């Protein structure tokens, strides 16, 4: 099993909710503040994007389901701050700092003048690899029978449950990319070749809408075996 966030294919959610006013980038002012705070805290470099995804996935399912999108971000940020020793539970509870951060961490603060450059450069995940790809375009591959992190029980993974144990065709090769299953747990970037794999809708769903439809996923080599 994976976790509450792994909802692809799930039944029961009803129509897609549409905003009344789509002209606003942030429906509420605090949404923008939550996003900015999360981005700026991430720039401190204490965690990576995979860890930041995983901490949201690890919210109790009841909280994950009831929280709005940016509420999940805030909960994730609070938990990361405590997990990485930046803030104590007491500080989270009182909303005040008991002590300044160490100088080396404070030196990494994202200042306003650096914002555009930092966001414009981003954080590419492609890495050089001395190993060639195991699969060629057009190869038939089977995904792992179980969608789950192989190294860490309950750990982060990017193979959705709905595509586990299915046969598809490699349609794109993206070179080697940081492997989230390792990186989310600070066990190194461990880059692996990344592919786009195409699955016939009828191979994923009991009642596919059309036999001609397909779903494509980006999957790391470690999730795949020859089929």
């Amino acid at each position: 099993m994976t976790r509450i966030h792994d909802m692809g294919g799930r039944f029961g959610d009803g129509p897609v909710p549409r905003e009344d006013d789509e002209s606003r980038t942030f429906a509420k002012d605090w949404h923008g503040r939550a996003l900015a705070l999360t981005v700026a805290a991430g720039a401190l470099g204490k965690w990576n994007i995979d860890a930041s995804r995983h901490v949201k996935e690890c919210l109790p399912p009841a909280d994950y389901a009831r929280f709005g999108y940016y509420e999940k971000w805030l909960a994730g940020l609070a938990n990361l701050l405590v997990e990485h020793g930046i803030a104590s539970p007491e500080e989270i509870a009182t909303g005040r700092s008991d002590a300044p951060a160490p100088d080396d961490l404070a030196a990494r603060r994202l200042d306003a003048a650096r914002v555009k450059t930092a966001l414009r450069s981003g954080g590419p995940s492609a890495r050089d690899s001395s190993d060639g790809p195991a699969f060629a375009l057009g190869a038939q591959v089977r995904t792992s029978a179980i969608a789950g992190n192989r190294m860490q029980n309950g750990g982060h993974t990017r193979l959705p449950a709905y595509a586990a144990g299915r046969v598809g065709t490699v349609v794109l090769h993206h070179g080697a990319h940081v492997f989230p299953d390792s990186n989310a747990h600070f066990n190194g970037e461990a880059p692996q070749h990344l592919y786009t794999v195409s699955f016939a809708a009828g191979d994923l769903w009991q009642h596919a809408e059309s036999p001609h439809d397909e779903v494509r996923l980006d999957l790391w080599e470690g999730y795949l075996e020859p089929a």
Partner: protein
Amino acid sequence: MDSGRFDFTDLCILNRSSTTCFRANTGRWTGARKPAQDDAMPHDHHDDNPHSLLPSEPALRVKALETILVEKGLIDPAALDAIIDLYERDIGPQIGAGLVARAWNDPEFRTTLLTDADRVITELGHGGRQGEHVVVVENTPDTHNLVVCTLCSCYPWPLLGIPPGWYKSDSYRARAVREPRTVLAEFGVTLAEGTAVRVWDSTAEIRYLVLPMRPDGTEGLDETALARLVTRDSMIGTGLPHSAGTTA
């Protein structure tokens, strides 16, 4: 109400190993054990974990976390303003629309965009966070592309801005892969018979942008006029471009 403070009836009792708070909104006590270093599942956050200590009102949760980090010298409040400003004013669907319009008018550019989007995007200065690796996928009479992220909310920020709420909703994430045609119908999109749906589930750091089909009757339009026909949803796949002469 002063948004910089907690609800006055919230009360927290702190001691060496735990924190317990009374939450006025729920009438319940919540506790937070200090996380032990030897927890077998250090990433699992149950009811007694830090996020449950935050105030009940989301705007106050933001304020609490911002205050802590500013006081620690880790956050520059002006940087938060700058980030919000960037995504409210500079970065949005108009950037993607410019690429689409140019591709409609310039066959060579279109070919490069479809085969090496990263090069085009870097050259035009449109790279950045959540758009480090981009693949542009083309709609044709045979194939309609639809982009989703079932596991979270991956989206090409530098080309389309911050994703709309519906893109991040459970319903869209759950259903776009299993019943894309039903979802498309909710968005008012009906495909021609014989058009297959190709759903892209953004499970890695590759971000997808749909190149919609150029509307009929737009042969004489320049890039600026064409860009006005390109909607955000048409670049996600949940919409089609405006028809010629019907720019919203």
